[in-house]
């Protein structure tokens, strides 16, 4: 199978039926993507496939043949600096234990790509597939909205 991961061409072997989540974490060392439930409920395993946010626990690696996959490791800027969104997450206290953060960042990233005119309700709806147990979501929403300026 061949696909692009965070801009790099990847070629991987083995069964195409394996979960993309496992291929990322076990074969490619991209452990930023987390397993919280394995059933598409928590969003901790969120990745981008061709710019759309999906749960990688529900995607067979064969399905990303020829596609662009982006994980949290691909969010930082070219020179390794943190993106505006990543900085906002730190500044606003949007990350506490951090386990939901990779998935949350990717879902928020897509929201911001789609529109810079977001309301708090838009952000809540866009992040509804990413469970957080630490923050109560308040500061996550603040962080995302701060990037719409």
């Amino acid at each position: 199978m061949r696909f692009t991961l965070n801009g790099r061409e990847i070629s991987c072997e083995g069964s195409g039926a394996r979960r993309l989540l496992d291929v990322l974490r076990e074969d490619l060392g991209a452990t930023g993507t987390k397993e919280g439930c394995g059933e598409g409920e928590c969003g901790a395993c969120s990745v981008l496939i061709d710019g759309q946010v999906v749960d990688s626990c529900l995607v067979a690696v064969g399905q990303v043949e020829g596609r662009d996959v982006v994980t949290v490791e691909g969010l930082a800027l070219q020179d390794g600096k943190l993106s505006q969104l990543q900085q906002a997450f730190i500044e606003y206290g949007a990350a506490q234990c951090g386990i939901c953060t990779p998935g949350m960042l990717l879902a928020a990233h897509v929201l911001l790509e789609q529109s810079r005119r977001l309301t708090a309700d838009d952000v809540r709806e866009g992040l509804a597939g990413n469970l957080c147990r630490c923050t109560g979501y308040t500061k996550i929403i603040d962080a995302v909205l701060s990037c719409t300026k």
Partner: protein
Amino acid sequence: MVLSSTIGRSVPRREGAAKVTGAARYTDDLVIPGAWYGKTVRSTVPRGRLRSITLDPAFDWSRVVVVTADDIPGDNVVQLIRDDQPVLAPNGGEIRHKEEPILLLAAADRGTLEEASGHIRIEIEPLRPVYALEEATEVFTTLEITKGKVVEDLEDMEVVERTFRVGLQEQLYIEPQGAIAIPEANGAIRIIGSLQCPYYVHRALKRALKLSDQQAIVVQAETGGGFGGKEEYPSIVAVHAALLARKAGRPVRLIYDRHEDLAATTKRHPGVITHRTAVKKDGTLVSQDIEIVLDGGAYCTLTPVVLSRAAIHAAGAYSCPNVRIRARAVATNTPPNGAFRGFGAPQSLFAAELMVEHVAERLGMSSVDLRRKWMLRLGDTTATGQVLNESVGSELVLDAALKAVPTAQPLNRRTARHGRGLSLVFHGSGFTGSGEKKLQGTIGFEALADGTFRILTASTEIGQGTKTIFCQLAADALGVGLDKVILAPQDTSLVPDSGPTVASRTAMIVGRLVQEAAAEVKERLKREKAPLRLEKSYFQPDSIHWDETNYRGDAYPVYAWACTITDVEVDMTTGEVRVTDLVTAVDCGKALHPVMAEGQIEGGCLQAVGWATIEEIKMKDGGYQNDRLATYLIPTALDAPRIRTILVENPYSRGPFGAKGIGELPMDGPAPAIIAAIHDATGIWLDEIPATPEKVLAACASR
């Protein structure tokens, strides 16, 4: 050059960059060459006698390591308070709950593990299980607190009696339980795991595997949430992993998937709380007679301490001359319950707060006015006879919350009704009574030759900000920049036992030690050269008196206070309750890091909202029906209310800069406020949580 202090400033989280780039390494992220996978095989029967374990000879068992109770070198006991819970069910022993661990497997890949577990036959002779709290006959522990004498027969009195029920709740840390065990030289075993209390695990390992202090090594990995769920449970995961690693002679990864975590790990103690409150017609509180029954599940775990906290908080944030609190915890054949943020207080405060509402209703008074009349103030005495002689923020937080109420939002639906409710709660910071004294929590502090300073503590970062605020406190005391302060890893071979990361004690008790140690090192550096190292242990002030036998005296060093106002929208067509707004004013003593303090409050409030509304666990045959994330539901961003936090700083003389513990307090206020809000919207009174649409609709219909 004097650098300005960062105390009270929301500096970037110490490990924030790692968390937002995916670089932070949680237990299952770690690559351990040669590690096998482990699996726990559990009872499907809620009560019985283990008769036999048969491994199917048709399966090639050479590929698999099997561990049973016979393989335990030390005591087959999960080290905690009582020695009642086995590590693995012994042959002929009694199985007391569904999901009880019976044996362990390890293999090179998960496929082999799955296959192997299908080739095991376990014979359990069933015994009659007890599920309902009301039918329980075995009592773990009882406790009684008395002050004055319960009075109900004076002239001009009203007596209000009510019974409340609170349900199970799962901590639902987004990272499931997991530990990796690595055998090392000289019989040592290293555990790397997702945990809150390295030294709890250390003690459990020593006991079950017969290891010395040096042979047992426990390292906390970056941990994706705990909330108490990783206080004592990780001891089981770690000991299991260690037994497998020891027998396999190689590292073993024991990582739970979400289904196992939901089905088998500890939950909040459910319970029934009954109040009989006697008041004069003018609202004067005369006596409170309270009975608490908590369901501990099959084994004792931390139940006596949970019951203790429940009892101490049971009379609420109020001053009453005559109080009797009788509390007991019983055993049922359900999975053992354990630590969860609040630890008994949310349960008893739920009842206490709603009693204020019911008494106010009986008297035709406003419940806010009644709270003003009753609330504990400076100089008042609690139910255990503790005189509150400082930092009592009860009226401060009530006034602050009332001033900040949101304007009611337009309703979403024609069939919806708006309601508003309020609660006033308090929560003891630190361990109960002589707890801190017994713990003797200790930290190490070093001045290194290169001009940096290192904090050595077993207090863990689990998202609440331990690492950040400890560095702030040290840097401030030393007068250096934050970048000069580092922390040693939370590794028992490197750091002393600072006590567990629980009980709202980390900032107030351990943070204070960090502050004192840093100040002492600064002094010594005036006369000596680095490297320097010292240790600081908790020292109980003479002014704290606690009588453990009679449960009287200074239950906690100090209390934190919160007033919470919630707005709800109840859809009369479906009974659905939406919490739309939540305002909470919290007396935290001092906010060392305002954003992190708010973060704790906001997160805790939403957990309480979930407990009060949608986090329902239905039992069937002694097991949880809600054992997947599709059926155990916590609030999403779309469910969460707008939450606004008002930090009130009312300093405590012994906290660092006046800081009090607030980790658990946010769990106490929202649930009763939501029930009061539902009443405000619909006229119905619910006596139990979660306030599901089924209950709301039925109550509205019968009105």
